[in-house]
């Protein structure tokens, strides 16, 4: 199995793209073959990912493993440098798993107006972009993958989306493109200062300090704009509710579960270790914005009447916790942030699946028109309750640990940061958790409990969880519980890798 060391990560990244090319050559009328091929390639990529997991040395999670470093563009010293460590591995597996489950879900649920060939091909191209972002160790390579998700997601929202899909698609595209130009400026500035795009080399150089304080701050600002738009942080979040609401179910799931993580991952992998001094300067600002996002997101959720839009705003809040954890610059906080990313991927991905399935059954997502799910479709209602409770951060389920660690980290932030400010932020975050619990319970009450509305009383077309839905959802549901009961599943991977990054931060 030694070939996995050289090829595993590349295969996991590029097999989906190969699948997309294969799909192009299949006749578009052959629905079943197309879906089988799409599932096959997503599955092969997942198997490659599992092989990577098997070869991964869990005793050295802080090191980059299964590394490949080959010359790519000699003229600008950009290399094909990929590999995984304890931070990227869980995110890579999450991306592989969620995409595979989406493929299973798509067997019965290709959104209007059909065209499974094009849709599946886009999902696979998107997957390559997402996987690549988590394993790239070269800034240019990272940027290429980062940008490569734009086009497929644009088409997914624009063709298969809801009524305001055009607006949402263009807004998503231009907003992200705008941000990424500043990120690119930052990358190029780093290159000019150091002559390398290699993240690992830059991390080592960064520990000693690259350039003057002003230089660091400017570069950090550039990276921050691009990454913060992707996360999205308040006040750059306005593309998110539109994109999430209008996207087809699978698009929302991938957007929430994986795409948003690319932004926070960028902070952990690139911005903090390469520019540690600037990170200290910016940490209070990031922390304040994060807490605003937590509270603002929760308050917005109270005002939403559309279930999908509500879940979208809840993402703003949850990503706020992740950013708060990062802003503390502590081991606890950053471990919590990575845990939060995985947990949010599992839980919110699952919630978007459910919102899509509710729409399919009831042809509406208006919370006021729904009711009595538990009475009418008890299994579905139970799953919904389970996920909502996981999302509000009940101990024992995945949502708890990320928030807990973020708050714990902000009680005692890294030494150069102002502990008073961060304790205030902790209180703000704490209020946020209460609000989060409030709107989620209220949503469960309105959707799940109560009487079945008259117009749905005949139960026509309203069926409980189907076999295929179980296949697509069960792994997520199990993992939500597993990560909640055994947080070491993720934290065991991340803690050493976070220590390596903290080494760069000098504490």
């Amino acid at each position: 199995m030694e070939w996995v060391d050289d090829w595993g990560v590349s295969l996991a990244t590029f097999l989906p793209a190969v699948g997309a090319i294969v799909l192009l050559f299949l006749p578009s009328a052959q629905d079943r073959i197309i879906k089988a091929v799409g599932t096959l390639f997503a599955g092969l990529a997942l198997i490659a990912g599992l092989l990577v997991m098997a070869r991964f040395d869990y005793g050295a999670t802080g090191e980059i493993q299964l590394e490949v470093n080959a010359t790519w563009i000699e003229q600008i010293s950009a290399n094909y440098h990929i590999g995984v460590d304890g931070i990227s591995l869980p995110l890579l597996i999450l991306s592989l798993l969620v995409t595979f489950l989406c493929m299973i879900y798509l067997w019965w649920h290709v959104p209007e107006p059909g065209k499974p060939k094009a849709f599946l091909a886009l999902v696979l191209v998107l997957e390559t972009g997402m996987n690549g972002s988590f394993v790239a160790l070269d800034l240019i390579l990272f940027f290429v993958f980062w940008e490569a998700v734009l086009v497929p997601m644009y088409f997914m929202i624009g063709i298969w989306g809801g009524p305001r899909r055009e607006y949402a698609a263009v807004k998503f595209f231009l907003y992200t493109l705008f941000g990424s130009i500043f990120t690119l400026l930052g990358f190029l500035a780093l290159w000019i200062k150091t002559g390398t795009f290699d993240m690992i080399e830059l991390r080592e150089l960064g520990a000693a300090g690259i350039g003057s304080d002003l230089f660091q701050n400017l570069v950090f600002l550039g990276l921050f704009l691009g990454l913060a738009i992707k996360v999205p942080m308040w006040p750059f979040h306005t593309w998110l509710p539109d994109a999430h609401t209008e996207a087809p179910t699978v698009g929302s799931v991938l957007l929430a579960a994986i795409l948003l993580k690319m932004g926070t991952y960028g902070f952990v992998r690139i911005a903090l270790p390469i520019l540690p001094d600037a990170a200290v300067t910016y940490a209070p600002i990031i922390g304040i914005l994060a807490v605003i996002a937590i509270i603002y997101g929760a308050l917005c959720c109270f005002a939403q009447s559309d279930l999908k839009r509500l879940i979208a705003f809840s993402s703003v809040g949850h990503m706020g916790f992740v950013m708060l954890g990062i802003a503390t610059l502590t081991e606890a906080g950053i471990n919590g942030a990575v845990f939060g990313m995985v947990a949010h991927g599992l839980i919110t991905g699952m919630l978007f699946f459910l919102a899509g399935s509710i729409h399919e059954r009831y042809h509406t997502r208006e919370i006021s028109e729904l009711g009595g799910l538990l009475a009418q479709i008890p299994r579905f209602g139970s799953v919904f309750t389970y996920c909502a409770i996981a999302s509000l951060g009940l101990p024992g389920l995945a949502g708890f640990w990320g928030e807990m660690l973020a708050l714990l980290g902000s009680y005692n932030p890294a030494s150069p940061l102002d502990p008073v400010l961060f304790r205030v932020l902790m209180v703000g975050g704490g209020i946020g958790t209460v609000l989060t619990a409030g709107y989620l319970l209220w949503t469960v009450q309105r959707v799940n409990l109560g009487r079945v509305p008259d117009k749905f009383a005949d139960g026509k077309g309203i069926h409980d969880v189907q076999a295929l839905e179980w296949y697509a959802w069960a792994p997520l549901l199990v993992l939500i519980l597993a990560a909640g009961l055994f947080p070491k599943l993720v934290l065991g991977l991340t803690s050493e890798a976070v220590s390596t990054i903290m080494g760069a931060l000098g504490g």
Partner: protein
Amino acid sequence: MNPVDWHALAPEVVLTIAACAVLLIDLFVPDEGKWIAMPLSAAGIFGTLAAVVSLIGTGNHVTLAGSFEVDGFALLFKGLFCLIGLIVLAISFHYFRSGRYYQGEYYFLLLTALLGGVVMASSRDLVTVFIAIELISVPGFVMTALRKRDAKSNEAALKFFLFGVLSSAVMLYGMSIIYGITGQTLLSKINSELAASPSEPIVVLSVFFVVVGFAFKISAVPFHFWAPDTYEGAPSPVAAFLSTASKVGGFVGLLVLMFIAFPSVADTWRPIFAVLATLTMSVGNLIALRQQHIIRLLAYSGIAQSGYVLVAFALIDPAAPGMNAQALQSALIYLAIYAVMDLGAFAAAVAFGRQGGSYFISDYSGLWLRSPVLATLLAGFLVSLAGVPPMAGFWAKLFVFKATIDAQVYWLAATMGLNAVIAAWYYLAVVKRMFFDAPTSEEPLEIPYLMRAAMGVAALALLAAFIYPPLITALAERSII
């Protein structure tokens, strides 16, 4: 006098013979067989390409008393012109055959203009440069007017002609002053003469005239007014040719002049290019936002695209050869990628125009359902023009961007960044129409195989260069002048 190096001249000789053969054979072929001119021309260009390939790796050839040089730079552009010629031939075939426009004459003129480009790549002398640029332009005037009974075509040709001769006159005036000051026509000697003599206002003025002359040819703002009207009125394959071969030809001339003849006085003309680049990018993009006609959209977008190439000229620094090499390389990469993606977009517009009968963007609604192949290809070219992965246009922008940052001209880099977002807006508007809007007609479109092949090759080339950019960067690296 040294003997002429015929091997170095082989591409030009082959192309000249092919052009004459096309014109002659056309005389003896009946009307319904005139289309034969196109495969003949294609054979001629393939022959030229073979001659270019035979020159690879044979070292530098300098002949005709130093006014003609074959080096990496020349070979790169000779190859690019051949590629452009082949794609334009593929676009032209159905258009001119079904319209029964003067096929023999058209292909002859096309080959002649191409000859101008191939000569330009090797020109190292003021006179050769001037002859080459005229050789590119003059057939263009006639080709634009080929739709004789169309008033728009006539207007387009007249505009193009008047602007063309005016710009030639201005350019020639500048060149004559330079000759008067230095007493030289060889570019390298002009540079050493200019470096030796203190810079006088008259030098600045003459360089300025030359730049303005070329600015007309490459339709840089504010000398761009002829371009959109001319492209719209001309037969659309000719528009494709003007927007790629003519423009690249103009840029090659400008590169040769600025990097060989005038670098020693770069301080005086660098700001001119910074202003030209900013104006060209921004004005081109802003006007493109409002276009309803695909050819006009491509015209303005092409203007904006040339702004990115002009940026490279604004980075030249006589004291920093490394920086110059980087700027030149970024311009080469941009031009090569631009030519392919722009031709692809024009090919798609021509295909749709012939089959769907319209050049208006509103008629592209729902094209995806009528012809998935055409819609996907056009979307690919537009995404490339916008500079977004997974197409090579991304690298074109990135390398210029990088050179600009390296030269620490941050405001220019910021302008480019903003312009990239503006441009993405209008390219996406077309994509949106094709994919998101409901079709106005259900009728499926059949795209001729030759067009499919041309567009497919262009798209594959762009995709390949995206995945493995050394395909183009390695060439550019060997093409430093």
